[in-house]
C-alpha cells in the first residue's frame, strides 16, 4: 500500500494555482464527504481503548499483526520451512514442460509484486524511520516476516476456489473463496462477506490504488518541473491508463512492466553501493536498529513508538492480509494451489524484508537523522513528534536526501521511479477493482467498460483535487478489505492446512518431482 502522508500534507502538495472558485468547490466536496464518511475513517483508524506505554495503537494494525501471527503459528512457520521450495518453484524447477506457454510462477509473483512495490517502500519507510528511529526497522522486518504467512494463506485459497470459464479465462480472489469455501465447509455468511469485500475493494481501487497514486505522482513531477495544475498530470495519466485498460494497447503496459522491475532492482542496487561504500558503518547501523527496537534511543513514544511505526509501515507496504494478492495470483494454471501460496510468501520478503530494509539502512547510515553527540540519542523536532532531520525533510524527500548523500543525481531517478511505480500500481488496482466489480454486477463488455471509464475519471480527480477526505476514506477502504478478508481466512485456514500437508507429504515421498535437473 502506498499511503504515506496523512491527508493534511496532500493539501499542501496539491496545486496552489487553482482558482478561488475551484477551491471552494473542492472545499465543499471535501466537507460533504468528510461529514458523511468521517465516521468510517475514524472507525478504521481509531486507536485501541488503552494506550501502550503512552502511545495510541491503531486497532487495524493490531488486527493485521495478530492475523499474521496466528497464520504463522497455525502453519508451523511455513515462511521458513517453504522458503527454499518457493525459490525452486519460481526458478521453474517443478514446472511441467507440457505447460510451457501458460502463466509461470515467476510471472504471477512479479505481477503481484508490481502492485505492492512502490511509494510505501520509498516514502513510507522514511516516515517510519523519521518518527520511530532506526529501531522501527526491526519491527518492520518482523512484521514482514509474519506477513508472509498471511499471503501464503490467501493466495492458496485464491487459486483453489477461482472460477474457470469455458473460454479459458479465470477469475479469482477473496470473493470467490468466501462464497465457495464457506459453502464447502457448510458455513453461513460467505456471500455477505464477499459482497462487503467487493464493495471495499472497488472503493479501495479507486482511492488508494488510483487517486492517491495520481496525487503523489503529480506532487513528484511538480516538485521537479515547478508547480502546474494537477489536472494536466491527471489527464495524461488517464489517457495512458485508458489506452492500456480500455484500448488494450499492450505495448505501453509491457514497457512499464519491464521498466518497473528494472527500477526496483536499480533502487536496491544503488542502496547496496551506498552501503558498500560505508561498509564500516553497517555494523553500527544494525546496532542502532537493535538498540532502538528495545529502547527507542530517545524517539517519541520510546520503543513502543518504534514498534507501532514499524508494524504500521510494513502492513501498509506489503498488503499481506488485504486480499489483493489473492486476485493477482489466481491466474496461474497449476494443479496444486499450495504452490502458488508458497510462491506468494516471497512477496512480503522482497517488499518489506529486502527493499524496505535497504531504505531504512541508507537513511540510518547517511546521517540525515540528527543525533546528540553527547548522549547518542536522537534529537527531536520542535513539536517533539519526529526526529529532527539535517534539512528538515520527511517522507519521500527524506529518502531522496539520504540517497543524495551517496549519488547527487539520485533524486531525479527517484522521481521517475515514483511516477512509474504509481502507474504500475494503478494498472494492478484497476484489475483488482474490475474483478470485484464483475463479481457484483456480472461479467460483460459494457459493464467492464463502465468501471474502466469510472477508473480513468478518478485519476483526473485524484491528481487535480485536494480531496484529502476522499483519499482518507479510500485508504480506510483498503484496510476494511483486510477486516473482511482475514475474518474469512480464519474460517478457511483448515482447508489450506489440509492442502499444505498433502502437498508436502507428496513432495517428501517423491510423488511430486522436479522436471529440470
Amino acid at each position, binding site marked *: 500500500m502506498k499511503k504515506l502522508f496523512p491527508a493534511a500534507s496532500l493539501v499542501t502538495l496539491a496545486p496552489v494555482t487553482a482558482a478561488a472558485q475551484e477551491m471552494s468547490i473542492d472545499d465543499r466536496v471535501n466537507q460533504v464527504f468528510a461529514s458523511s464518511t468521517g465516521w468510517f475513517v475514524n472507525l478504521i483508524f481509531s486507536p485501541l481503548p488503552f494506550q501502550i506505554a503512552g502511545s495510541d495503537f491503531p486497532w487495524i494494525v493490531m488486527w493485521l499483526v495478530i492475523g499474521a501471527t496466528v497464520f504463522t503459528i497455525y502453519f508451523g512457520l511455513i515462511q521458513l520451512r517453504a522458503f527454499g521450495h518457493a525459490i525452486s518453484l519460481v526458478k521453474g524447477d517443478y514446472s511441467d514442460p507440457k505447460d510451457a506457454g501458460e502463466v509461470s510462477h515467476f510471472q504471477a509473483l*512479479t*505481477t503481484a509484486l508490481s502492485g505492492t512495490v512502490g511509494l510505501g517502500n520509498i516514502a513510507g519507510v522514511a516516515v517510519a524511520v523519521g518518527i520511530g528511529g532506526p529501531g522501527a526497522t526491526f519491527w518492520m522486518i518482523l512484521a514482514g516476516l509474519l506477513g508472509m504467512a498471511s499471503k501464503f494463506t490467501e493466495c492458496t485459497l485464491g487459486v483453489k476456489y477461482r472460477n474457470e470459464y469455458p473460454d479459458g479465462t479465470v477469475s479469482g480472489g477473496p470473493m470467490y473463496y468466501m462464497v465457495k469455501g464457506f459453502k464447502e465447509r457448510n458455513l453461513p455468511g460467505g456471500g455477505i462477506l464477499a459482497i462487503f469485500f467487493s464493495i471495499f475493494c472497488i472503493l479501495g481501487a479507486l482511492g488508494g490504488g488510483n487517486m492517491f497514486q495520481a496525487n503523489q505522482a503529480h506532487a513528484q513531477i511538480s516538485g521537479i518541473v515547478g508547480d502546474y495544475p494537477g489536472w494536466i498530470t491527471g489527464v495524461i495519466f488517464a489517457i495512458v491508463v485508458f489506452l492500456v485498460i480500455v484500448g488494450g494497447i499492450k505495448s505501453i503496459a509491457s514497457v512499464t512492466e519491464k521498466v518497473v522491475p528494472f527500477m526496483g532492482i536499480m533502487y536496491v542496487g544503488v542502496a547496496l553501493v551506498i552501503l558498500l561504500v560505508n561498509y564500516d558503518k553497517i555494523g553500527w547501523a544494525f546496532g542502532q536498529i537493535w538498540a532502538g527496537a528495545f529502547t527507542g534511543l530517545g524517539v517519541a513514544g520510546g520503543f513502543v513508538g518504534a514498534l507501532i511505526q514499524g508494524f504500521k509501515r510494513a502492513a501498509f507496504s506489503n498488503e499481506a492480509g488485504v486480499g489483493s494478492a489473492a486476485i493477482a495470483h489466481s491466474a496461474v494454471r497449476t494443479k496444486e494451489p499450495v504452490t502458488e501460496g508458497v510462491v506468494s510468501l516471497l512477496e512480503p520478503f522482497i517488499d518489506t524484508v529486502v527493499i524496505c530494509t535497504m531504505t531504512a539502512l541508507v537513511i540510518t547510515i547517511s546521517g540525515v537523522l540528527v543525533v546528540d553527540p553527547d548522549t547518542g540519542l536522537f534529537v527531536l523536532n520542535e513539536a517533539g513528534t519526529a526526529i529532527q532531520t539535517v534539512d528538515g525533510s520527511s517522507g519521500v524527500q527524506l529518502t531522496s536526501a539520504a540517497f543524495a548523500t551517496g549519488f547527487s543525481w539520485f533524486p531525479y531517478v527517484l522521481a521517475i521511479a515514483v511516477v512509474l511505480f504509481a502507474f504500475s500500481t494503478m494498472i494492478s488496482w484497476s484489475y483488482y477493482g474490475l474483478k470485484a466489480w464483475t463479481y457484483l454486477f456480472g461479467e460483460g463488455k459494457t459493464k467492464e467498460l463502465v468501471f474502466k471509464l469510472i477508473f480513468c475519471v478518478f485519476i483526473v480527480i485524484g491528481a487535480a483535487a485536494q480531496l484529502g477526505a476522499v483519499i482518507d476514506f479510500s485508504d480506510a477502504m483498503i484496510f476494511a478489505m483486510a477486516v473482511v478478508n482475514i475474518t474469512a481466512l480464519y474460517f478457511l485456514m483448515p482447508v489450506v492446512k489440509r492442502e499444505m500437508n498433502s502437498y508436502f507429504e507428496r513432495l517428501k515421498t517423491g510423488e511430486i518431482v522436479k522436471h529440470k535437473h
Partner: protein
Amino acid sequence: MSKTTFVVGIDGSDAGERAVAFAKARAKAVGDCAITLCYVIEWSPFSFQTPEENEQRHKRREEEISMAHSRVLDPAVTDAKKDGCEVSGIVRHGDAAEILDDLAKELDAAQIIVGRVGIRGLKERVFGGVTGRLVASASVPVTIIP
C-alpha cells in the same frame, strides 16, 4: 532397426521451407525416415506481464497453438505427405534453440535441420541467433540450410 528421425524447425519463412525441402530430399535418399516438423512460439517464463494478460494467458496460448497449426504447420505437413514422406507436426512454447534440441533428444533423432535466417538486429549480434545457439548447444548433428 528403428526409423531415422529428422527434426526440422519451421517458422513460416522461406528459410524454413528450404529446410523442409532438404529434409524431404534426405529422407528419400536414406529411406525409412520419419520427419518431425516443429514450430516454436517464442515464450519465456521469466517475462513480466499485467494481471489482465495473466488472466487471458491460457486462452491466448490455445489460440497461438491453433493458429500455428492452421497457418504454417498443417499446410507444411500436408505438402510433405503428398510427397510420400512419413511426417508429423508439433507446436511448442519456449526458446527455439532449447526446444528443438529437447525434441531431438526426446525422439532420438539423427539430426536437426534448420534454415539460416541471418543475423538481424543488435540483440542477435550480441547473443547470437537461434541457429547460432542451437549449434553451440545441440546434442545431435545440426544441418543449417543457407
